């Protein structure tokens, strides 16, 4: 994936960016070099032109001096003045030589130097010769028109012309280069953005294809999740933003699905444990029943005999103990094989009153106040198995009475409520709370309180709450145990008013899990 990203984005972008960079740098370097050499050549040419002009000026001065000599008093001192001009001329010839670039210029300078040397040699000779006035004039005239004009002035002119031509040439070359640079920059300016555009389009296209490819498995996943948790709206034309939102939703829902899986795993484990415990309980009960019955019948038969074989009190103790053992066995069996629900409609208030009557003797004996708070004055008709609901009530109230210390109280609260925790429309039902002022439930137990053989009472086998939970759930209701904030425990039972058909019930329970 990483190399894929490099190939798809980094490489083209790098290519597109580096190519103009290289071209730009090379171009700038080339322009810089050219400009530098051109400016050197130009400065040399300018220097040459200056030298040329100065040479021309020097030569013209000499000519003017000689002409003044010829046309004036013809004093040889004037010729001496001309000789002094040699230093000026030599100076500029040297400078001109320095500025000479081309062979032609160098030739002109060499010619100029020879001509100049020859002119001054001849002039010196004339001065030293001390010729008669006429001859001197003639000789100077020749020197002026011949040596100076052809051997000195002409090469100087030539040098100047050559330099001027050079300047023109380098000007033209400069113009040419400027044109090239112009076109080059134009080309770069057009090609750079164009290639960027093409590469960007390519990358964008590649990515939009990748997004479409990516959206297919996402759609697939969303579709699969739809079946379990509910719809996720998603179109194939979606962009990155929507994919991100959908991915977030999918992640959330996967979390929810995992939670449900974990919950159903726990439920399955619980059911397995219950089944195992049930089998064991049935086995124990089975084994106990026959000997118990034999013992009871013997004891009951013995109590009829006269004279009694055992003291009457002993016999009754025996019988009581046997009855207690039998009750335990009953509980085991109830737990192992829950009886079928026989539903009929009855008023829950009647059942509550009966139950409270049954428990009131025990409550009185243990000094526990027992009362019922009906939060509705109406009758509370409910469709359920009366015997089983009585068992639930008895279990919960007896547990509470046993848990409360002397002087405490136990009370029932009943109110009609709707069940809104399920999927689908809310169902009318009854909430029944059994509250006490006892020590409360050990927090370490948590929901394990409803598991078999888990109990808080010192006596008892710990199946009561487990049976209650099963009865309530088989009626389509729920039961939970909490500690009240003011101390003591509260068991809350919710039962539907009207029983749903068994299949619907199971489906509801399954879908709620």
């Amino acid at each position, binding site marked *: 994936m990483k190399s894929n990203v490099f190939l798809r984005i980094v490489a083209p972008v790098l290519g597109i960016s580096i190519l103009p960079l290289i071209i730009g740098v090379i171009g700038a370097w080339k322009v810089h070099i050219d400009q530098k050499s051109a400016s050197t050549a130009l400065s040399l040419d300018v220097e040459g032109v200056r030298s040329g002009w100065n040479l021309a000026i020097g030569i013209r001065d000499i000519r003017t001096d000689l002409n003044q000599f010829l046309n004036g008093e013809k004093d040889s001192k004037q010729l001496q003045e001309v000789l002094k001009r040699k230093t000026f001329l030599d100076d500029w010839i040297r400078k001109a030589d320095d500025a000479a670039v081309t062979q032609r210029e160098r030739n002109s300078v060499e010619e100029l130097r020879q001509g100049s040397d020859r002119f001054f040699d001849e002039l010196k000779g004339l001065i030293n010769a001390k010729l008669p006035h006429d001859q001197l004039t003639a000789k100077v005239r020749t020197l002026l028109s011949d040596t100076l004009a052809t051997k000195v002035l002409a090469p100087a002119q030539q040098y100047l012309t050559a330099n001027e031509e050079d300047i023109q040439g380098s000007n033209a070359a400069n113009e040419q280069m400027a044109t090239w640079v112009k076109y080059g920059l134009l080309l770069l300016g057009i090609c750079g953005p164009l290639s960027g555009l093409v590469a960007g389009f390519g990358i964008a296209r590649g990515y939009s294809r990748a997004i479409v490819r990516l959206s297919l498995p996402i759609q697939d996943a969303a579709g699969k999740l739809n079946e379990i948790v509910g719809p996720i709206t998603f179109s194939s034309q979606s962009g990155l933003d929507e994919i991100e939102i959908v991915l977030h939703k999918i992640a959330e829902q996967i979390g929810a699905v995992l939670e449900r899986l974990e919950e159903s795993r726990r439920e399955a484990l619980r059911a397995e444990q219950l089944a195992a415990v049930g089998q064991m309980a049935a086995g124990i*009960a089975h084994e106990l*029943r*026959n*000997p118990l019955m*034999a013992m*009871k019948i*013997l004891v*009951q*038969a013995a109590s009829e005999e006269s004279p009694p074989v055992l003291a009457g009190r002993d016999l009754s103790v025996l019988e009581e103990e046997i009855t207690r053992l039998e009750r335990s066995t009953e509980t085991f069996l109830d737990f192992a094989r829950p009886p*079928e629900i026989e539903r009929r409609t009855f008023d829950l208030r009647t059942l509550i009153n009966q139950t409270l009557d049954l428990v009131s003797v025990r409550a009185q004996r243990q000094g526990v106040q027992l009362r019922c708070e009906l939060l509705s004055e109406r009758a509370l008709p409910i469709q359920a198995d009366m015997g089983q609901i009585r068992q639930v009530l008895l279990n919960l109230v007896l547990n509470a009475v046993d848990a409360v210390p002397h002087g405490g109280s136990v009370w029932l609260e009943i109110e009609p409520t709707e069940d809104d925790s399920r999927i689908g429309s809310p169902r009318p039902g009854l909430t029944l709370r059994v509250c006490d002022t006892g020590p409360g439930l050990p927090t370490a137990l948590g929901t394990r309180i409803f598991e078999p053989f888990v109990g808080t009472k010192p006596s008892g086998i710990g199946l009561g709450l487990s049976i209650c939970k099963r009865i309530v759930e088989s009626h389509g209701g729920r039961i939970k145990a909490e500690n009240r904030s003011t101390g003591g425990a509260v068991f809350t039972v919710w039962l539907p008013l009207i029983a749903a058909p068994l299949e619907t019930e199971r489906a509801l329970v399954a879908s709620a899990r």
Partner: protein
Amino acid sequence: MQLNVATILVVEDDATLGEVLAKALTRPGWCALSVSSTSVALRLVESEWPQLILLDMCRRDGAAIELAEAIHKSSPNLPLIVLTAFPQQKSSFPVSTSRFVTKSINLSDLRQMVEAELSKSGPGEIPHRFALPYKSVPALSRRLASSVSR
């Protein structure tokens, strides 16, 4: 020697419990036999013409149901009290006329129920296959019972 003695057949695979039940149900006017094998029980039904059968459902291999069907076939009006650990078995029991009691029943309740059943049915019924001209005497029954249950 009383001739109008009602014979009660206790079919119980737990021999000790069967013996205890037979002893508890043997009182003036009643004679109870205990048997643990179904084949012997069937034979006794045919030879002893009991007025009532007390049958334990907790028999292994489901033989109790077969026995109940067989007895019902040969003597349809013979009252049958079924002793069970699970009252819900009632719905799947083939003989609908039978009474069900759980094993936690008290002796006095059991005696009342036996008495009620006996008073309903009257004298013992002679099975169709053995229309014998005489009724067995209790002494014989007891001897027979002790010989087969040992």
